């Protein structure tokens, strides 16, 4: 399969107090056109840093090595001009809080047409027409009228639609959505992910969907990768995730989430708290919290290997059958 985005052995480190702290370790990931990949994990696991590396939106003290190729071109080697062009037309990113990502003192119409007019030299009328069309596509009613309104006159869900709309105006081929629905109500979340789903199918967009909600990631994406402490610990098709996942952390995440359908006597919580990659050393990061851990887990970083039709970073993956869990939840 020809991939739109191909990440190979990505390492990201941050320079803090004179020492290089690792944030992401040996991350490999590919996204094809029209494919949705979910990146799931808890805060600090490196999901957002992965997306930022793809955009090369990294702070001065953060550096990325390895390879990131977009459509055959190496993103990490682009010169400023190429990088500008890449960010302008090939890839777009939507953030968790749309209100923080839009200029509050300019109208939504200004925001949407600015890029079109500056980059393509389109006339004002033409750009406005294009923007109105795009707003209608993302389900914003009375689009022409709303173009003149300011961000504070939009609800959170509507503003997130505006952000999605802005990515449609360019010829974006890859959309990085970083927790785009976390700040939204659950009914609005359903509408917004429904929209993202339709757009990537209709337009063949590659979608990287970052979320802390394993259920949401599995519902929306073709493939789901779970991250823990800067490493991908499990990656398999969303369809298989409920029944075939073998990493103890993936299993624990499903278990720990309270279900709408039943009350359990006690939630199977994961003991301890998430750990940062630079505290891990040469060991499995999940080892201190893992019910399956053995001595060998603390001695080396387990590699990703194929178990049960997916990639799992666990030396005990054969022993962590999760079917009991699924029966319980079903």
């Amino acid at each position, binding site marked *: 399969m020809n991939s739109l985005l191909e990440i190979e052995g990505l390492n990201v480190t941050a320079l803090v107090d004179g020492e290089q702290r690792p944030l992401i370790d040996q991350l490999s990931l590919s996204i094809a056109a029209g494919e949705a990949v979910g990146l799931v994990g*808890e*805060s600090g696991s490196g999901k957002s840093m992965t997306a930022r590396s793809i955009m090369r939106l990294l702070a001065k003290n953060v550096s990325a090595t390895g390879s990131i190729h977009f459509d055959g071109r190496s993103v990490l080697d682009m010169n400023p001009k190429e990088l500008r062009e890449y960010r302008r037309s090939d890839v777009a990113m939507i953030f968790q809080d749309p209100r923080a990502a839009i200029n509050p003192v300019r109208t939504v119409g200004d925001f949407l047409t600015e890029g079109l007019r500056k980059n393509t030299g389109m006339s004002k009328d033409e750009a406005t027409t294009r923007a109105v069309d795009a707003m*209608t*596509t993302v*389900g914003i*009613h009375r689009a022409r009228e709303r173009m003149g309104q300011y961000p504070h006159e939009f609800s*959170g869900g509507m503003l997130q639609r505006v952000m999605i709309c802005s990515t449609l105006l360019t010829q974006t081929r890859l959309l990085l959505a970083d927790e785009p629905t976390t700040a939204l*109500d*659950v*009914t*609005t*979340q*359903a*509408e917004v*992910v*429904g*929209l*993202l*789903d*339709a*757009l990537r199918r*209709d337009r063949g967009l590659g979608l990287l969907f970052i979320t*802390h*909600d*394993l*259920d*949401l990631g*599995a*519902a*929306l994406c073709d493939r789901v990768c779970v991250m823990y402490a800067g490493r991908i610990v499990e990656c398999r098709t969303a369809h298989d995730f*409920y029944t075939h996942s073998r990493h103890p952390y993936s299993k*624990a*995440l499903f278990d*720990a*989430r*309270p*279900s*709408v*359908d*039943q*009350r*359990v006597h*006690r*939630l*199977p*919580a*994961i*003991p301890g*708290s*998430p750990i940062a990659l630079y505290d891990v050393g040469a060991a499995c990061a999940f080892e201190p*919290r893992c019910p399956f851990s053995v001595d060998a887990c603390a001695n080396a970083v387990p590699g990703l290997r194929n178990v049960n039709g997916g990639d799992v970073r666990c030396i005990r993956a054969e022993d962590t059958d999760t079917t009991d869990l*699924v029966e319980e*939840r*079903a």
Partner: protein
Amino acid sequence: MIAAVRTKDVRKVFTVRGQRDQGEHVAVESVSFDLEAGRCLGIVGESGSGKTTLARMIVGLETPTSGTISVCGIDRTSKVRSAGARRAWARRVQLVFQDPYTSLDRRQSGIDCLAETLRLHFDLSEAQQKVRIRELADQVGLTEKQVTSRPAQLSGGQRQRLAIARALAVEPEVLVLDESVSALDVSVQAQVLNCLADIQASLGVTYLFVSHDLGVIRQMADDVIVMLHGSVVEAGPTAAVLDSPAHEYTQRLKSSVPGPGWRPPISKESV
């Protein structure tokens, strides 16, 4: 028997002064419920549904425009004037906020934070206070080291445990939890929910659990009220309401929750 919390026709109207929409905004409209002591009532709704305003009125941070609120049989509809009366109120009802990053004093260690609360409400000797702080830390599962740390050295889950310990310090009858686990990661959220369940089982505290998360409500609440635009649209035992939601809004809420087999709704493009 006296209900731990009783509200009758509670209504809250805010005056809005804006450029476009001047006038009144009804945040809560005729809400009535009885919450029995030792039980957990869930309040579900989306942002703007009035659930937080309702919680704030019960704590005493807002006064209802009309209607009555009583806690343990004592009316607390009108505003208190004196600090003493305010403290007496606080002894009965405590609030745990959503964000443990902003609801704790960052310059205060856990011990100082709990000691301040105890000093304010009780007349304890230093030794007694020490014992009580240890007891509170045990109840919420904080270690000796954690409770001597400042918030910056604690994780989100540990901070929220400290916030819960601070609320429990005054031995309240009612604990109002306003989205208290929403900011926590899933693995930590489960720990805190279990901890809250243990506390309720051992101390018999009454919970008012405000959340937008139906899974959390299902796990914690005995009964639930569903709010929409300030009004209660559905109420009843949690299992009954969530298994067979009667109101169209509750049905939509439930069908929006992702889970095994869930698909995002087909987007109506170009409507």
